[in-house]
């Protein structure tokens, strides 16, 4: 129950933020995904 109730609130907050500021959230998601090339780089180097 503890994790489930928390997840419900967290999902609600995230949904709320994305609906309120869709453009900002899209840019943010892009910024985070910019890390993917880094992931590939270190995965192959390891």
């Amino acid at each position, binding site marked *: 129950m503890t*994790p489930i109730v928390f*997840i419900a609130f967290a999902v609600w907050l995230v949904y*709320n933020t994305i609906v309120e500021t869709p453009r900002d959230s899209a840019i943010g998601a892009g*910024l985070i995904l910019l890390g993917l090339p880094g992931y590939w780089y*270190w995965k192959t180097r390891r």
Partner: protein
Amino acid sequence: MTTEPQISPLATDLKRELTLFDAVMINAGTMIASAIFIVPASIAAAVPGSAMSTLVWIIGGAVSLLGALSVAELAAAYPEAGGQYAYLREAYGPVPAFLYGWANFAVINTASIAAIAVGFARYVGFFTHSPLTEAAIRVSAIASIVGLTLLNCRGVRLGATTQNVLTSLKIAALLALIVSSFVLPGGAAANFQPLWPSGSVGQWIGPFGVAMVAVLWAYDGWIETTYVGSEIVDPGRNLPRSIILSTVIVVVLYVLASVAYTYVLSPAVVARSSLVASDAAKVTIGSAGAALVVVAILISTLGANNGIILTAARIPYAMARGGMFFRSQGLVHPRYGTPTVALLTQGVIASTLTAFGKYDQLFTYVVFAQFVFYALSAGAVIRLRKRAPQVARPYRTWGGDIR
């Protein structure tokens, strides 16, 4: 004469030297920044009615506690550097973990440090003869980042002791504000009116949600001590206790503070206040009260940044140690025993964001991601109980088994 032993910085690990008290002070100190001195006004403005706004603080605190209780299980089971980074890696694999670490390294933690440092610097202007210029604010903000970063490079004990002092002082200041509100003349029970806003319940669900978001952000920071998971003694016992205890302390303080402001000012006046703690203290203590609040905010923001700076550098450190980031981020200073390169890089990024002033913009971009990762961590409690049942769990949160 002895010769200094040659120790490879990559062979040196961080040592377990933080106690339960240190961990509680790190977490509580990071949660309490400037919000509790300011944000109660926006809550009162969104939901007019003292009982209703108090309810927002209580429910927001309860939700944060549920998050803290979930993470506490993971912290006890995986007491590693990087904390949440390690939980995401164990539960979901390297990609979500890497993106989490990257987002924190590049923006989330570094922009938080910049924003809190600028908040700190703005209040410094209260004690100067003329208000600080924008340039002076940025210079003071960067000076605070540099100072705290160097201090935390010199040893985790020094950083933690600084944190203990600053968090103790900020809790004492908050308690002084709360007690003076109820004990000194100025407040009245009549100020709690109205308890509830007029109108239908359905009409207030939206505003309640808006207030709730602000409150959840005011409580944010309960994850912080997980980042230093590999530096806490007896982690199976101390990590979950520190996470839960610090969250309970902050919830109690926030609820009492919001009730105290209302007792002195009434919901309508709280809603209009630009610095609610100061307005309440002016009524009960007088003009010295306003100065007390500014000192409290200075201590509080400085301490919150010390907590973030100390802990957040452990994320790139953990990534590098796993071979998933710049190798140098994993270096440990042979004498000071701290991840100096990770700390200095973090300081440089935060200072750069401060100098260019784009930290708040950057922060609004990625702010939603913070709770995506929290939700993933709570999900990791359930997922890891199925996938890794053999891992010892010194603390088990209530209701983590979902069939």
